[in-house]
């Protein structure tokens, strides 16, 4: 029960409320919450549960978020960006970026550079997951419509 509230419910509410501040259409508030929840649960499961690398877990989570967003976008006839944005918000490395800033203020430049590079890697992983999920349907379409010789 505690896991349900602390992981599932909290991430659902966080993604849905952030969607509201981005002014997403009313019918998509609940689906956006679900996308955010799935991304966060996957990330936590891979990172804390399976002890995988932070960057890799983020990449997998953002890829799955993007794939689900593509389907939801088709189903609700809305642009993908509506679902993507709410889905990746929990994955954004806000905590690490904060730590970077704190290390800089404390003149601890070694740790600051280390966490700054991790922030960049994680941001890159999020974007790469999104791009990959956007490319796959295009490749499939191209294969399907290729003229037979």
């Amino acid at each position, binding site marked *: 029960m505690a896991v349900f509230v602390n992981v599932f419910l909290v991430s659902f509410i966080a993604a849905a409320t*952030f969607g509201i501040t981005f002014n997403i*259409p009313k019918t998509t508030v609940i689906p956006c919450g679900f996308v955010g929840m799935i991304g966060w649960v996957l990330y936590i499961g891979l990172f804390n549960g399976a002890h995988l690398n932070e960057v890799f877990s983020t990449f997998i989570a953002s890829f799955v978020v993007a794939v689900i967003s593509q389907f939801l976008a088709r189903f609700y*006839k809305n642009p993908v960006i509506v679902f993507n944005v709410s889905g990746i918000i929990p994955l954004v490395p*806000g905590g690490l970026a904060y*730590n970077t800033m704190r290390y*800089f203020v404390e003149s601890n430049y070694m740790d600051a550079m280390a966490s700054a590079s991790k922030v960049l890697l994680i941001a890159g992983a999020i*974007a*790469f997951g999104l791009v990959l999920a956007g490319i796959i349907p295009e490749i499939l379409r191209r294969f399907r419509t290729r003229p037979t010789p």
Partner: protein
Amino acid sequence: MSHSVNDIMDVCLSAGELMLKSGAETYRVEDTMTRIARSFGMEIVHAYVTPTAIILSVQGDDPSETQTKLCRITERSIDLYKVTLVNALSRRLANGELTFAEMKRALEKAEKTTFLYPLWLQVVSAAIGSGCFALMFQGGWTDFIPSVIAGGSGYIVFIALHRFVRIKFFSELVAAFTIGLIAEWMVMLGIGERLDKIIIGSVMPLVPGLFITNAVRDLMAGDLLSGLSRGVEAFLTAFAIGTGIAVVLAIF
């Protein structure tokens, strides 16, 4: 039903302007504008979109009638409902469900739509979202209420300042500073426990997640100029938040 190239370009530009101002991706804006122009029978359409300006060049049946227009974009925010509206309009237009006059009227109407949610609901959402993020980043339940208060007040400061001073960097810096101060006070008063978790949760509504991902996506799609300028925008926001928090951390 032939309209002058000029009229068609105006419709394309106002659709593009609306989308870009609301935070749509570069390729989507270019795509929508090209599709609108094509559906009105324009032969050659070139749309060049950057975060600060749109250039549209259109040629109709008559090659001597090529025209180019420029539209300056000064302000960008996130309003995904408008992106959805314009997207739906262009789709209906492509299916032939809309005439030129209807499209023009619908775009004017879309431009005037305000936020779907009242201001208090946005602030409450940002506040509750902040609290949830504090919990997600391994804060305890004692940190929930302080993050809700700090995140909500930070968001109010951001919106209020942005209405008066139209400089995003400044409003973000002051908002982050306010969040830092409130979080410090909360911990001093003994309401919250972990200062860093409270601050991280509370600044989340200001974090430029959308801009960062849009920037990288533009870069990968080959829109180098848009990608770089969006990246700079995201970096400036992150820098403003970081500076605001850093000042508080340096004071205490």
